[in-house]
């Protein structure tokens, strides 16, 4: 398989071309089939590649294949090379697997949408870029994937572009991401300037024996991490992700929960050999990650939009992954990336199923309203049983209750922050874990328990989604339960199999790492028990407030109204950014346009254009159409040329 690794990204590209060019002629059925089939085959090939990698001895699990020279200019040569190592093998499995499930789900969810072929072609294109991003063996290919997924994200957020709010959300995502990409790009320039190469192999080999100044590496890694904060929605660039929920829900599940937003985490993990040389950057990453985790969790406590809660939850969970990278536990961060892909995709698809049902009921009842507001839901447990059960499984998993998958990955990150010498980070992460349990169960209870709070005539029209949508939920539900079992820690009798599998990818970082934390079994038990206790506490708290005593939250809110309002308005960050960046930029742009562009730039450009145009009019007069004139001109030219050469 590794000889034909290029097929894995190529298949989705083929799907994009077929669906994009011929989609309208093929009909919706064929489009859905082709779109899903190419991803399914890519998944099978990924499994084959994974199995092939497993069959190799551990130190040989690094297959780097160059297929052709993509471009060469001067000292810069960029081969089209793909790298299959444990990290990328796991990533392609997760990306293609989750994508396949979500493509199947989309067949049902997008049924009847006039943009059906466009939807599937964009989704295929996204998977192509995402696979390129994780498979490339050098920075330019990663960058193409990085920009490409951003483009697809923009296209899909604004998929229903006739709605201006949705189109604006797409623009916001794109622009905020561009800010981060700028940092990433500067990081890449610095890498080329410092190492003179842009391949992972070349840079890691030099980083291994790095004796140059540490400050260069600090700036490189900081710029790259800034790029990651854009793509992976961390402070300060997280603001686009909640708005990105304007896209179709399967898109939120695939791009804005399971795959694209984890690109930043992948990038940091892929460059562990550089980040290991910059402990200061690692500390910044750990702190940014944990602050994002708790910051987003507090906002999620009070939000009333089912998808927005999940969006803030995603931001918060991505924070955990960065904590893992920041404390040097790259494998733990990647493990959490994988388990999060399962349960968060499940949560989004479950939310999609709910929204689908309510929208349907709205249409039947002739009612126009927001189908995503959990204040007008409730009691859906009986109407949507499969959705309910799978959603509940995902909530338990994200809350971190053993033996569900989230427990193993999240607990490992928290424990490694303590063990790696960042106890403060660990404490904050634990508190955020408690908040996570609370807001997830608040969401679960408000949506599925209690009685229906919408209009009575709608309730009769609520139905479970078709099997093409519920089957993916069940599959993801199973994965959310068992997905963490490959990462059971030693103290619980597990083998940390995933961490051992991933270890070769982080070998150089391990060698370079200056952090060698102490390991105490009793401390690990203590951390484990504490975090589970906090999670259970959060669940019980949610149960007390939203099932037992629905009046309690109102009384509590009355007492802390300012806090509630602060959280509900998301700390006013959007307003602050709008005032500080958007308005000032607009004002600056307006001023520059009025006082600089019009008189100076336009004047110069128009003047030059006029001059050139005038010259064109004059010179073309020479083109008289008369042969004798032409011959005379030629003769003059000959006299000039030959004369110059003879009498020089």
């Amino acid at each position: 398989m590794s000889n034909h690794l290029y097929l894995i990204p190529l298949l989705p590209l083929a799907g994009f071309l077929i669906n994009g060019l011929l989609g309208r002629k093929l009909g919706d059925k064929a489009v859905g089939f082709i779109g899903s089939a190419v991803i399914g085959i890519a998944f099978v090939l990924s499994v084959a590649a994974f199995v092939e990698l497993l069959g190799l001895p551990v130190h040989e699990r690094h297959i780097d294949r160059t297929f052709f020279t993509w471009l060469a200019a001067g000292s810069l040569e960029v081969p089209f090379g793909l790298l299959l190592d444990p990290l990328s093998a796991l990533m392609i499995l997760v990306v293609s697997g989750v994508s396949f499930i979500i493509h199947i789900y989309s067949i049902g969810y997008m049924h009847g949408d006039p943009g059906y072929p466009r939807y599937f072609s964009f989704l295929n294109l996204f998977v192509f870029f995402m696979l390129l991003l994780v498979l490339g063996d050098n920075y330019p290919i990663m960058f193409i994937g990085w920009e490409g997924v951003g483009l697809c994200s923009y296209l899909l957020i604004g998929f229903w572009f006739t709605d201006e709010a949705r189109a604006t959300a797409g623009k916001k995502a794109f622009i905020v991401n561009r800010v981060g990409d700028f940092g990433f790009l500067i990081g890449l320039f610095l890498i080329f300037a410092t190492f003179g190469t842009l391949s992972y192999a070349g840079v890691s080999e030099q980083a291994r024996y790095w004796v140059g100044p540490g400050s260069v590496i600090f700036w490189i890694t900081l710029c790259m991490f800034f790029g990651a904060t854009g793509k992976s929605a961390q402070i300060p660039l997280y603001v686009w992700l909640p708005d990105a929920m304007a896209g179709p829900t399967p898109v939120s599940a695939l791009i804005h929960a399971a795959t694209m937003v984890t690109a930043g985490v992948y990038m940091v993990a892929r460059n562990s050999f550089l980040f290991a040389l910059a402990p200061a950057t690692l500390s910044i990453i750990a702190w940014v990650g944990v602050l994002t985790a708790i910051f987003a969790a507090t906002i999620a406590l009070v939000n009333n939009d089912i998808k927005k809660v999940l969006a803030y939850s995603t931001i918060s969970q991505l924070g955990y992954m960065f904590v893992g990278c920041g404390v040097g536990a790259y494998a733990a961060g990647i493990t959490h990336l994988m388990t999060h892909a399962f349960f968060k995709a499940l949560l989004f698809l479950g939310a999609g199923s709910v929204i689908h049902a309510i929208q349907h009921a709205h249409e039947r009842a002739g009612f126009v309203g927001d189908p995503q507001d959990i204040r007008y839901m409730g009691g859906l447990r009986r109407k949507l049983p499969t959705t309910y059960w799978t959603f509940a499984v995902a909530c338990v998993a994200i809350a971190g209750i053993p033996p569900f998958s989230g427990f193993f990955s999240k607990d490992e990150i928290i424990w490694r922050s303590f063990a790696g010498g960042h106890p403060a980070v660990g404490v904050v992460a634990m508190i955020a874990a408690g908040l996570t349990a609370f807001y997830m169960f608040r969401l679960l209870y408000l949506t599925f328990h209690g009685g229906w709070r919408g209009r009575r005539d709608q309730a009769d029209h609520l139905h479970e989604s078709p099997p093409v949508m519920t089957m993916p939920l069940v599959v993801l539900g199973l994965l959310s339960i068992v997905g963490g079992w490959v990462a059971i820690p030693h103290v619980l009798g597990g083998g940390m199999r995933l961490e051992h599998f991933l270890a070769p990818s982080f070998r150089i970082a391990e060698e370079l790492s200056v952090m060698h934390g102490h390991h105490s079994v009793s401390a690990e038990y203590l951390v484990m028990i504490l975090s589970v206790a906090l999670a259970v506490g959060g669940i019980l708290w949610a149960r007390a407030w939203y099932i037992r005593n629905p009046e309690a939250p109102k009384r509590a809110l009355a007492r802390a109204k300012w806090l509630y309002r602060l959280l509900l308005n998301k700390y006013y960050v959007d307003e602050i950014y709008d005032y500080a960046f958007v308005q000032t930029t607009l004002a600056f742009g307006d001023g520059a346009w009025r006082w600089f562009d019009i008189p100076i730039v336009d004047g110069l450009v128009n003047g030059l254009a006029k001059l050139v145009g005038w010259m064109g009019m004059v010179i073309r007069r020479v083109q008289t159409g008369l042969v004798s004139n032409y011959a005379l001109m030629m003769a003059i030219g000959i006299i000039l040329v030959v004369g110059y050469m003879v009498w020089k």
Partner: protein
Amino acid sequence: MTFNPSDLWAVAPEMVVLAVALAVILIELLATRREGVLQGVAAVGLLAVMAVAVWSLGRPTGAFNGMVARDGLTVFVKLLLAGVALLAVLMSRDYLMGLDKSAPTGVREEVKGNPPLPPPAIAGGEAGVRHGEYYALLLLATCGMMVLASATNLVTLFLGIETMSLALYVLAGIRPERPRSGEAALKYFLLGAFSTGFLLYGMALIYGTTGGQTNLSMISKAVADLGDGAPVMLFAGVGLLMVGLLFKVAAVPFHFWSPDVYQGAPTPVTAFMSVGPKAAALMAFIRLFGWALPDLADVWGPALWMVAAATMTIGNIVAIAQRDIKRMLAYSSIAHAGYLLIGVLAAGSPGVRSAATASMLFYLVAYFLMNIGAFTIAILVSRARPDGDYQIDDYQGLGASHPYLSAAMALFMISLAGIPPTAGFFGKLYLFSAGVNAGLVTLVVIAVLNSVISVYYYLRIVVYMLMRPQPSPVEVRISPAMTAVVLVCVVGVIKFGVLPGSMMDWARSGAENMAQPTPQVVVDVNDPSQIRQSDR
């Protein structure tokens, strides 16, 4: 001087082209006059030429006592030339079939002076063009270009130029019912004959001053032997030879024929002429100036530098003022010739000779695809007009009624302007970086500024197509052959704009696998005993 049968491999593509040309004429005379058959024979024949060209690839060597080269460079150029001819053949049938509809030309906007000639009476009362004759001439011109591109002797060089030119003179005037076509042919012929005179005169001077050498590497040796004592007449000869070649690539100030001829000639011929002769003549340039006369680079370099700068600047500036798309593309093609001359100049410094040649080859491939594509769409759009004219205004609002066609045209324009991700961008990138490596920084800066100017008139077409309302509805009909041509060009422009590596690798190996053969038997004209009685 013995004849070596393996020498025939060096000219195998030319032989096949000739055979196909004869076959087309004979088929038309003796078997059938069905246009599709003739076109098919020509097209399949050109595919065979390409196959033979690839087959003939071998160790770089010469043939016929150093008259022509047999190496990677010639094979690359022959493939390119056969490709140009193939696409020209594919787009010709629809054009020729549609001629009956188009009325005689209207008032000329551009060309003043000569009053329009009355349509001549056509022998036999037969209107239109004989297709077989047309394809045969196209193939003969191709044969001449191939000889020119592989010539390593002044005699073969001249032979190639004249074979190519004579066929092109006739092709330019192949529409006798259209005065502008005849006018184009006459202008082309008169000025072409004029320039051939200088070319021959230059050759004679070189022959005289190098002790009777016509082989390029022998000339090179003789020039090296002369050293500082080279006579002025040698410089004059090199200058005149350069002028003759510059006429063929339509460089300023020897370009005056090209806008009139491009406009007047049948459009597929124009498309063919805008790429083929340039490619062939530039290869002759490379062999002559890059490989044979680098010692005289300080003599011909500055002159060519001025010509290159003037060519790109005047080409681009005058293109802005054009209202006719064929004339616009003519000036654009003058400008591109100016860019390509940077490659010739860069090849004059031995360190970057191969890189410069490779970048020129890549540029020619890119230019071939985007220019043929643009001309094809120009044909399609003009055929939608009742009078078959080529006004730029016809492109207004085309984006709304013909989105795919407009997208293709926009792609070609963007590529011609050199904007990524298109082949034109990488062509410029490689060419200009070769120029910088050869120390031609000022010229490259001029070229980049010129590229900026060119964006104006290329994107004007795109703006017209997408942002202007359509004055009146047009119906563009596209036949399968035309679709194929446009598709090949679109795919190529995107392919080499996204993944230029493979083509650049081929170009590089073609440029490195190059032969400059010397004759095995040298005739010393100063030694009477070596000249047979009959030659005196």
